[in-house]
């Protein structure tokens, strides 16, 4: 146990990095997801195709591969950014594909009549999406998006593999000094579990508050 408590400052620093990465990459993923779903359900065939390819490619590649490619490949073509920044951007782009798919299932759950009524009133496609379709779609996918948030939190630990010192990497470093993997990784695991539990609590509350009578 002392192995864990003696190194609280390093572990705490790792947790802070994990939280920062989670929040920023989730915000990015939501933006990416909204853009991709707007393209994917929109009337322009080229944009639909681009969005479909985007989702298929990013969902079908392991995040670790994407992280390694970005961290070691981008500098080769002259794109240099900090390790953490690179990891956050890659995670945001990757999870954005999942958010887009969750949102699309929400859009599909809204009856076609809602969009028809919006367009019949003279709203453009973008306005219909923004004021009528997406607000309703979001309400139906709060739970899946909460799950994506939790998965994203866990996925930030893959950044450890490319050198970002977040919670998992910090725990690993402490373990190299102390050789006490059980208390150290159980401690780190509990921290991840706490983040996930908070996310579950918030999505549960949101879902009840946003419930729409049908």
């Amino acid at each position, binding site marked *: 146990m002392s192995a864990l408590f003696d190194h609280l400052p390093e572990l705490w620093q790792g947790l802070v990095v994990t939280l920062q990465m989670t929040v920023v990459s989730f915000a990015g993923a939501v933006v990416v997801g909204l853009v991709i779903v707007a393209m994917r359900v929109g*009337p322009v065939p080229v944009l639909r195709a681009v969005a479909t390819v985007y989702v298929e490619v990013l969902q079908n590649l392991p995040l670790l591969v994407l992280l390694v490619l970005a961290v070691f490949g981008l500098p080769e073509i002259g794109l240099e950014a900090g390790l953490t920044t690179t990891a956050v951007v890659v995670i945001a782009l990757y999870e954005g594909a999942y958010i887009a798919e969750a949102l699309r299932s929400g859009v599909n759950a809204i*009856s076609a*009549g*809602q969009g*028809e*009524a*919006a*367009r*019949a*009133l*003279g*709203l*453009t496609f973008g*306005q219909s999406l923004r*004021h*009528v379709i997406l*607000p*309703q779609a979001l*309400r139906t996918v709060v739970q899946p998006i909460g799950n994506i948030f939790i998965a994203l939190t866990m996925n930030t630990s893959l950044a450890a593999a490319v050198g970002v010192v977040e919670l998992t990497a910090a725990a690993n470093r402490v373990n190299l000094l102390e050789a006490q993997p059980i208390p150290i990784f159980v401690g780190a695991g509990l921290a991840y579990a706490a983040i996930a539990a908070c996310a579950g609590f918030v999505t549960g509350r949101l879902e009840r508050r946003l419930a*729409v*009578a*049908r």
Partner: protein
Amino acid sequence: MMIRVRGLNKWFGDHHVLHDVDLDVARGEVVVVIGPSGSGKSTLCRCLNRLEAADSGEILIDGVPVPEEGRALARLRADVGMVFQNFNLFQHKTVLENVMLAPMKVRGVSRAEAERTARELLARVGIAEQAGKQPARLSGGQQQRAAIARALAMRPKVMLFDEPTSALDPEMIGEVLDVMTGLAADGMTMVVVTHEMGFARRAADRVVFMDGGRIVETGEPNAFFDSPRTDRARDFLAKVLTH
């Protein structure tokens, strides 16, 4: 001429739903379209504001050809009100917000003015006290009247009604038809697809009878209902008017 349709054809796959349809609707005229299910009357109605794209033919609204998808089409739709069989009120907004949305976002009307107009319209259709409720809390008849108010809030040149009472319980049909009769009396140009023969007789300037994707007969309502000229119309009326 408010609406002018020439040589309209529409297929759903192999099914030829509209067959060289011609239709003129004058300003202020109330045209009621009747006919058996599957006769193409709803599709015709939906083609008028391009919710369905016609395969050939031309449609002019107030002298302007209905544009392809895009902003010009949105502008045209803003002037053409539509009321649906299933109301299609925005489920996540209150009744008042439903009526205010399009005037604010499409016409750029201020919130205060949009709200004033919306409340007036809700009072006119008799549901002023429901303004703050979500649509699902209203009866079908109230929802349809809210949907009519929502369409009227855009001050449309013409109103399309696609079977507006077909999803309603019998005791609620009257309240919706009363609102529509009032609109007709106020001089609104209307195209009404319906099975309500009483309304057709009372409110229509002209009845259009469709069957098999064609306009089979058209005429002034009393003449049409009392002495239809075609066998098909006579058959149809015999079936719907006997009970």
